[in-house]
């Protein structure tokens, strides 16, 4: 029971981190290696707002989310769009976007180091425990879990039910033929990338509440998110939720029952296994 609840809560924080990436990669077709840095930048901004301006982290989420959206929008327009145009829908975009966002990773990390220094950063907010079915869980983790479930649920609904979601799915499936039915692929991709950045930023703000971090931690977030995205199936929002929860459960299970030393190895082993046997993700459909 303890394992189950701890695993689910941990999984929720993982899934929240991965939501944005799956949208960026699945719909906008940008493999964003700087994803973790955007998350981290949001975490720093939250801490700054909290400490310097005294803005409550909960209110700050409302500020940081839209900010992430705006930055994602701008990044896409300035940096990604020319690459997309150049690739002409081919597979070159993947390599190009990996390389370009790898550069972006350095830029953001360098800026964070210059502005916030290399020190560990941490705030204490909502970290009192709360009992869930007899298991004590930190409130901020629970909050991340809730945000994840709400954001993930809303996205799932929006994508499967609304017209906007239909357009998103169309672009994700066949970006080349979407224009035939009057969809502005460029606009949709930009929206998706911006939305992904906003989710990354929200993920970052929740990270700031429960974890100590420093300016060089971004890659860790990217990797975790990537593992979950691949497991869940690229662009598949419910898949990401399930994969995140599954990963949280596995890690907690391995840590409790087998050996905490193998948690990360287990993560990567599962990840590689999924890649080998079901590269479309556990929940993806075969192409």
């Amino acid at each position, binding site marked *: 029971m303890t394992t189950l609840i701890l695993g689910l809560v941990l999984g929720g924080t993982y899934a929240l981190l991965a939501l944005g990436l799956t949208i960026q990669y699945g719909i906008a077709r940008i*493999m964003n290696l700087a994803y973790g840095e955007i998350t981290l930048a949001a975490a720093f901004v939250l801490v700054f707002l909290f400490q310097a301006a005294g803005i409550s982290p909960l209110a700050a989420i409302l500020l940081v989310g839209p900010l992430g959206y705006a930055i994602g929008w701008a990044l896409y327009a300035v*940096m990604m769009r*020319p*690459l997309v145009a*150049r690739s002409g829908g081919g*597979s070159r975009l*993947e*390599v*190009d976007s*990996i*390389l*370009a966002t*790898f*550069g*972006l*990773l*350095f*830029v*953001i*990390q*360098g*800026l964070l*180091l*210059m502005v916030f220094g290399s020190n560990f950063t941490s705030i204490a907010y909502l970290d009192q425990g709360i009992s869930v079915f007899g298991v004590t869980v930190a409130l901020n983790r629970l909050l991340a879990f809730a945000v994840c479930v709400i954001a993930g649920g809303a996205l799932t609904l929006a994508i499967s039910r609304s017209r906007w979601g239909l357009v998103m799915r169309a672009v994700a499936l066949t970006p080349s033929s979407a224009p035939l039915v009057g969809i502005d692929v460029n606009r949709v991709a930009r929206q998706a990338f911006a939305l992904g950045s906003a989710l990354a930023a929200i993920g970052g703000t929740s990270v700031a509440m429960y974890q100590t971090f420093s300016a060089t931690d971004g*890659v860790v977030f990217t*990797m975790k998110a*990537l*593992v979950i995205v*691949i497991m869940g199936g690229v662009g598949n929002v419910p898949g990401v939720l399930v994969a995140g929860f599954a990963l949280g459960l596995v890690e907690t299970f391995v840590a409790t029952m087998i*050996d905490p*030393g*193998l948690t*990360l*190895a287990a993560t*990567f*082993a599962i*990840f*590689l296994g999924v*890649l*080998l046997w079901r*590269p479309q993700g556990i929940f993806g459909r075969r192409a």
Partner: protein
Amino acid sequence: MSRIALAVVTVVLLAAIPGYLSDYSLGLMIGLVTYVTLASAWALFSGHTRYVSLATVAFYGSGAYTVAVLNESLPYPLVLLCAGLIGFLLALIVGLSTLRLAGIYFVIFSFGLAELIRQLITWYEVNVTGTLGRYIFLDVTARGIYWQMLALAVFTIGLSAWIGRHRLGLALKVIGDDEMVAAHSGIDLSRTKLIAFTLSSTIITLAGAIASPRWTYVEPSLVFNPTVSFLTVIMALLGGANRLWGPLMGAVPLFLLFEWLSVSFPDTYPVILGLMFIAVVFLFPQGLLSSAEAFRNRLKGGTA
């Protein structure tokens, strides 16, 4: 013929310079030759097939770690041999299981591989041998390392040149362009990819083994540093990964540039580096060599 003569003279000159260099310049040359080797070996497989591998450090680190484990129990040449063998076997296993993955999946898999190997070695060391962090006390001088690495670099480029003229080279190019056509032309996809991947990975493992005595102390988190993989990719792509001399043309200027930046702008260099990186992607999409060629053609032909 004159080309070969030129190459021989260059190699002889390169082999002779350590006598005239300061320790730092020699260190710089070692780093330079190491990355030329890595980038060329990487391009041997990835350049033509366009399978972007981020597993470089998985092999490089394995080589270094092998030396760290064996350096006290075996003579040095045997240690190198073992490292090569381990790289070969590892590449074989990885290759057999992964080369059917395409595109982004291969990229990500290769990245995860380095992490998995690192985690497994760590766990093994902690729980089985009970030590983490090994020492390399070998009587290999910086010059010795330089000569070995130079030899490996020459071998790598020579091998690439030979492959380029051999049917294996043509097969790799075809695979890079269109796997479907390759298969329908009679090319055995998995065998071809496996051979190239194994050759490339074994060389990379050896490079790690040769470089490791310079570090004295080896730990999984130190030797499996993903930056090595990324730098290798960037250097090869910058020069033009599908050209024989491309990786070299990318590795030399980038390596010197990194060195210069970190020396001159120790505080801001990540930002500059990142911006340049982005600039490279935008300005030289096909690599420096291709861009230079296109420029030359434009000068010569007037019209394209």
